[in-house]
């Protein structure tokens, strides 16, 4: 019975893994990506619109968040906000953490919009707000979609860190099964395969999107 691989155990753990995948991993990835994408854009624009000292403070906070491990941030938030659901904490922490990366991507995208575009918005007396929303951001996004997609995949693969704050995501579900049945190999392997099966097609999708965006003006 104690071979390296047991198909019965594999079939037994699979539904539990898939359930955790849908209920936690996928939800965290989607919601945190949404938070990171919106907050990141907000940070990038804010940093370019406020006076230099305030921008420096925003940059410092961003650097601070990026330079500390996400596990530390998860645990810190978990022990600080004991009354909040761990899943909610996970979603918010992932969202904020990755928003600092995405802000950098947006900044590069915004910088890549030619200066003449800004000048045209001035020559047409467009408001700053309208210039951002109608001209600059749409052009900046084209350059940033691939990088943003890659960060989303990266976040997806970081979700097992949630087990440190007791969220039963896919790996935690696998470990629990392993502990109960003394079969870890199948659970961990299958979790890895599910990650691969989800992220590989997504990365292909992103590179296709990248190609389409490049020629579609």
């Amino acid at each position, binding site marked *: 019975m104690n071979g390296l691989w047991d198909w019965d155990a594999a079939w037994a753990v699979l539904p539990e893994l898939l359930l955790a995948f849908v209920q936690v991993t996928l939800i965290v990835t989607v919601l945190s990506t949404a938070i990171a994408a919106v907050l990141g854009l907000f940070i990038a624009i804010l940093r370019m619109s406020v006076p230099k000292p305030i921008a420096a403070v925003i940059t410092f906070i961003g650097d601070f968040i990026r330079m500390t491990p996400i596990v530390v941030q998860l645990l810190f938030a978990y022990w600080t906000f004991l009354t909040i659901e761990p899943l909610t904490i996970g979603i918010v922490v992932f969202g904020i953490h990755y928003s600092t990366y995405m802000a950098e991507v947006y900044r590069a995208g915004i910088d890549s919009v*030619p200066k*003449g*575009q800004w*000048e*045209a918005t*001035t*020559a*047409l*007396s*467009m*408001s700053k707000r*309208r210039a951002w929303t*109608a*001209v600059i951001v*749409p*052009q900046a996004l*084209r350059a940033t979609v691939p990088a943003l997609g890659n960060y989303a995949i990266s976040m997806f693969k970081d979700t097992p860190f949630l087990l440190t704050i007791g969220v039963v995501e896919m790996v935690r579900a696998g470990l629990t099964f392993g502990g109960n049945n003394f079969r870890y190999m199948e659970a961990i392997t299958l979790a890895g395969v599910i990650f691969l099966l989800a992220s590989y097609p997504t990365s292909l999708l992103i590179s296709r999107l990248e190609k389409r965006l490049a020629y579609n*003006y």
Partner: protein
Amino acid sequence: MPTTTDPHAAAGDGTAAAVPAIRFENVEKRFGDNVVLKDLNFEVAKGDRVTLIGPSGSGKTTILRLVMTLESLSDGYIYIDGEPLTHELRDGKRVARSEKAQKQIRKRIGMVFQQFNLFPNMTVLENIIEAPVHVLGQSKAEATKRAMELLESVGLPGKANAHPLQLSGGQQQRVAIARALAMDPDILLLDEVTSALDPEIVGEVLGILRHIAETTDITMLIVTHEMQFARDVSNRVMMFDGGRVVEEATPDVMFTNPQHERTQAFLHAVLGSGDGHIGTH
């Protein structure tokens, strides 16, 4: 100080017709230590078509960019229809005007750029109606109707739904002209609008501008290397060198009998003929 620094007195006493469309007063522009314009004074009357000529680096384009508020003034004042544009003299002090006040004036000024600067994420039509709808508050239908007329007048009636990058350079520049005109500007700034175009399509763009000059009373301030165009369209030519106006004359005088030796040398260089004349066609 001259009383002309109080624009409201000039505008309010019934002599509005005499108020110049553009007036530079002691304008200075520096980029770091590099002084591009120094103590510059000149006026452009309403309806005037003034061409600025001179060697590159002489500050011509900077003048247009200052009027469009794309560059900030280092010192001095610019008045549009007698109203201070970016700075005003208040209680003996030079103070910056509010963004809101600047915007009100800016709305009356249009600019066409050397590099077109169309918005590539919008269609041709969207480019043209963007500002009329969102800045002037026109309805979409109204702005579209006008845009279609303008596209017709620049010879691109079928291109409303095309994207700018699907068009040739000459077509893009014609759209840019239509976009500027859609704002019904009192003042139109043309910054080397044919310099980025292939020689064989320069003519089509200049023809459209010539037509606009003939059929409207828009004040035009033009920077160009096309001396024939300068001669056809403008009623005044100003020769710049080293950030100063070295000579100012009607095109006929300027191109046939320039007085200043810098002008003579410049025209000789750009026209490539022995006597600095250009032919009349």
